[in-house]
């Protein structure tokens, strides 16, 4: 009776999460993405300093949630962080998440190191699982970095105060911070769609750029379709339809209905995409 594996080998110990964290941490794109999360609030802060307070911005019809967020951006650290989140939610965070999830398997395939990992052997489902967890971890880290640095810079420059809004009442600082974390959490949940899509494409293709770009492009397509009101009820099923529902967290009491709907939509989409990714990857011939 021969040993079924080399001494010390256990499938559940292959590709430890920390090993994968280190594999990704040493990559330039990880460092750049995280670095930009610190840089962006700084750029916005400097841009705000150019505000000369000149006339012409008082667009009477420009009301609505976004302009109120922008108008209040300099009223305190919390509002500044909120502004930073709001401007990056639409595109920047999508790209970052797509990068972390879309690049992770496809880049290993393009380097040729994927086949050696599978020959270790790292079980295919485990490989995907670890990659998924680490990509999610880096995404959360990127979001937290953005929020943290924006909060820090905003508070240093504009002070610590309640989270203001033009229509609803001001939210006291402690609760405002919780609301911001809630917004961050909801944004992360909506990004599950991007994460699912990018990861699926990462598994289907050997080209990392294709996976990232494809996921971002499909996201943009969905956003464009969502703008077309003629589509009516179909829009409710678009993955991007509820991406703005985090604004509900700014009102008192919180409007949670769309948050729940958005979370359901994102989780279902991500489950489908990840399910297909696992199904495909555990069965396909690795040709890279």
């Amino acid at each position, binding site marked *: *009776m*021969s040993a*079924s*594996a*080399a*001494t010390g*080998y*256990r499938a559940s110990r*292959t*590709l*430890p999460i920390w*090993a994968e964290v*280190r*594999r990704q941490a040493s*990559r330039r794109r990880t460092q750049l993405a995280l670095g930009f999360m610190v840089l962006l609030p700084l750029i916005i802060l400097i841009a705000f300093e150019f505000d000369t307070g000149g006339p012409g911005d008082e667009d*009477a019809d420009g*009301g*609505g*949630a976004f302009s*109120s967020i922008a108008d209040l951006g300099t*009223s305190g650290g919390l509002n500044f962080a909120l502004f930073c989140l709001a401007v990056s939610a639409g595109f920047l965070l999508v790209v970052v998440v797509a990068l972390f999830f879309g690049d992770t398997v496809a880049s290993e395939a393009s*380097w*040729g*190191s*994927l*086949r*050696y990992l*599978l*020959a*270790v*052997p*790292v079980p*295919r*489902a485990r490989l995907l699982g670890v990659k998924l967890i680490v990509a999610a971890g880096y995404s959360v880290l990127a979001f937290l970095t953005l929020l943290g640095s924006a909060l820090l810079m905003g508070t240093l420059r504009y002070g610590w105060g309640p989270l*203001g*809004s033009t*229509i*609803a*009442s*001001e939210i006291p600082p402690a609760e405002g911070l919780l609301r911001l974390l809630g917004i961050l959490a909801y944004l992360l949940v909506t990004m599950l769609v991007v994460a699912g899509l990018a990861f699926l494409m990462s598994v289907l293709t050997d080209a990392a750029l294709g996976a990232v770009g494809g996921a971002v492009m499909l996201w943009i397509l969905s956003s464009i379709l969502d703008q077309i009101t003629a589509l009516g009820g179909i829009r409710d099923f678009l993955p991007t*339809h*509820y991406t*703005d529902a985090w*604004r*509900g967290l*700014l*009102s008192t*009491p919180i*409007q*949670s*209905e*769309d*948050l*729940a*709907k958005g*979370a359901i939509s994102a989780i279902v989409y991500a*489950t489908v995409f990840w399910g297909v990714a696992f199904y495909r990857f555990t069965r396909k*011939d*690795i*040709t890279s």
Partner: protein
Amino acid sequence: MSALSAGLRKLPRLTRRRAITASVVVVLLAAAAVWTVRSDRSDWTSEDLRLTVSSGPAGNEPVDLDARFYLPADRSGKVPAVLLAHGFGGTKNSVSSDAESLASRGYAVLTWTARGFGRSGGEIHLDSPDYEVKDAQGLLDWLATRPEVSTDAAGDPKVGVVGGSYGGALALLLAGQDQRVDAIVPSITWNDLNKSFLPQSAGTDATGVFKKSWAGLFFGNGAAGAESAVSAQLGGGSETAEGGVGGGAAALDPACGRFSAEVCAAYLQMATTGIPNAATTELLRKSSPATVLDKIKAPTLLVQGAVDTLFPLSEADANAKGIAATGTPVRVAWFTGGHDGGEGPTSDSDRVKYLTVQWLDHYLKGEGEVPGDDFTWSRVAGFSALDRGLVTNGYSAQAYPGMGGTGRTQISLTGSAQPIANPPNGNPGALSSLPGLGGRLSSVLSGGVAMDIPGQVATFTSEPLTAGVDVGGSPTLQLKAASPTGEATLFVKLYDVDQNGASTLSAGLVAPVRLTGLPADIATAAPITVTLPAIVRRIEAGHTVRIAVATSDQAFLTPAQPATYTVAVEPSLTLPTLVGTPIADPGTLWWYALAGVIAAILLGLTVVILVIRRRHRRRETSVIDGYAETPLVVDGLRKAYGDGFVAVQEIGFKVERGQVVGLLGPNGAGKTTTLRVLMGLTTPTAGEIYVFGHRLVPGAPILSRVGALVEGPGFLPHLTGYENLRAYWQATGRPWEDARFDEALEIAGLGDSVHRRTKNYSHGMRQRLAIAQAMLGLPELLVLDEPTDGLDPPQIAEMRRVLQRYATDGRAVLVSSHLLAEVEQTCTHAVVVNKGRIVASGLVDDIVGDSPSVQLDVSDVPAATRVLEELGVRSVTPEGTHGLIVDMNGTARSELVASLVTAGIGVDRLVPRRRLEDAFLALVGDNSRGSGDR
């Protein structure tokens, strides 16, 4: 023909998977199409009618009304009816969507265009009991004759009246004048037109202040008879009064339009002076539900908007009190909307629709519980998350509290008496609301509109509130005023001022006050109670309340003469508060749905993992005992790709311990595919691979006893060679000391370059690093694909020694190569493959050992061929211009040379051939294109 078949081959092959995918897509598309078509199928029918009714004081003035009658499509027996009236300036089309939804709920719905509007005849009498109300009575008569409509008695249909604004007042007046009405739902309507157009917020008998902008809008609306601001704002299209269709349309009086002479005269008189005369007052009184409230016996649901400067909440309050006084069931609901705010947010319009249907279902159909007399209202919560509108939260209280709220809070104001100027002709004037423009609800509520003119306004402010106050009802205060003329027209406003100084005039509501008999000196002025319009608003903690007393407002007619008044307010401001229980948000259901979705996903995931675990456990136990000590057994391996290409036809061989086996074959022979299957990267179509007796499947743990280099190196370019090896070993999860790192590095022989990034490596350096990686942990079976690729001759020689040494300790090596010499020099055993099949296998020595054939270079090939054939050899094959390959068949080489020389043929060269080369060249020589091109 061949072009056609080539074209056909390019089409995707119809595989089972593709067929399933395609059919799923087709089914989904068909389902979507069916659903779309089905949802267009209406559950009601309608017919347009022209009904002639007789009205007028004597009931002898016929008028032709443009009407539409809706019936539910699937009704069984008779159904109750709803008379659905439109707002001022609208037509029957304005209420079509409400009519459709009521009809689909099982009501016969009669809508009509009121006299003086659209395609109906007659003139506008402002819901006069003699005209519009009598018209509606005629419609009740008509409904009673319809066979589809259920009746209480002969000529008495089971009917409810629903309407907003102009239609709401009609509902009240009709219910007061005709007892056949069984239930009414009037919304955003008036109690007393005198008070609506001449509001007076102070506790005096003086006539109020003329609300000129709303009155003008209404008058302009009826006079033009065209698409109007009011109807456009309140929803629904309207149609022009085309000549010849309506009664009075053909000869429009430019001053009065389609208004009746009395109404026109009343407006002109009132708008000119601001003080109505007796005839005007009497006309407005007749058109007011206030006169008939005590006669209303039909249960009444009153819906009033909190954002309404035309008919504020106090109008519904007066109606509710009047009707309830006689014991008739009354229910009140407020919503965030109205003549200024429109329909309000979806949550509000949904609530109003629900209440309406509940009311009608009970009192007309007899379905459902008795609607309670609890009171519901809503308050702005913030911006809608998805669009630019507002969202509100609904609340309910046990009973309707009226204008005084469920509680009250006193706030003290500071501010001394201040002089304020009345501008001549009210110009410039303060701005509070924009009647008829239908501004966005958010701007009305967030205070973007209101504006005071300096010098015309006195302000009195409170301290910042220590706690938030939920105001709901009419705030009251005591005002003192002095005027040199003895009279003053003032506007009292309540602003909510936040910490940054931004002030909001909630809903644009102001309290107009006209005072008479004032002293000239403020010191002698008596305080007068001013009741401000009812608002629904939460004033947050930290905000201040500011009371502004202004002399002008663009919405009102103010005295033309300039004057300077002095005003002061008593410190005490009473704010009614409204506390209720939040109406359960249907949105919470979605959180349960979310929890359900997550639970279902987790459950599914658990099931999948359990199933996979069980399958794994079963698989891992399968060991073939006979092969337990054999590093590698490949048995009947076949790999066919999805596009029909067969890379491996059938390959089977063994690698025993201590052997270095060479897998030899030309490019495309199937070597790499075999190794890919061996590494678990590719699943074979047929056949098995056993490693130490364990069946090999993708990811099988037995692979951990195999080290591999397949299809070139694969490294992380941003890491150094050393870091790459370490990252690889970390990925195995095995103990560090098992790696035998130093031995591997020695084999790689990279020196200091091992600390450079691999992206800067040459091909050979990467190759050596990859071999070192394959040897990490000294696996018992080493599989190397073209290991010498990119190495220089000394390194190749070194590699041969390394591999031979490696196999000595019970380990085995499998090397694939397309180079004969390499296999010959490195391997103990060889397996020769071509076109996916094994053509030779065995000990290299056996294969390489002398073969019965020799290669000859001779001076005369044809002559030599003849000589050799006579010698009785097995075969003679020419090769090149001078070469011959001879299968000797036992003939001695010396004899062969002697015969040739004897025959006078020069022999330049004689080389014994070896079997391996024979076999190999036979393959490659015959078809140098390789099997990959098949």
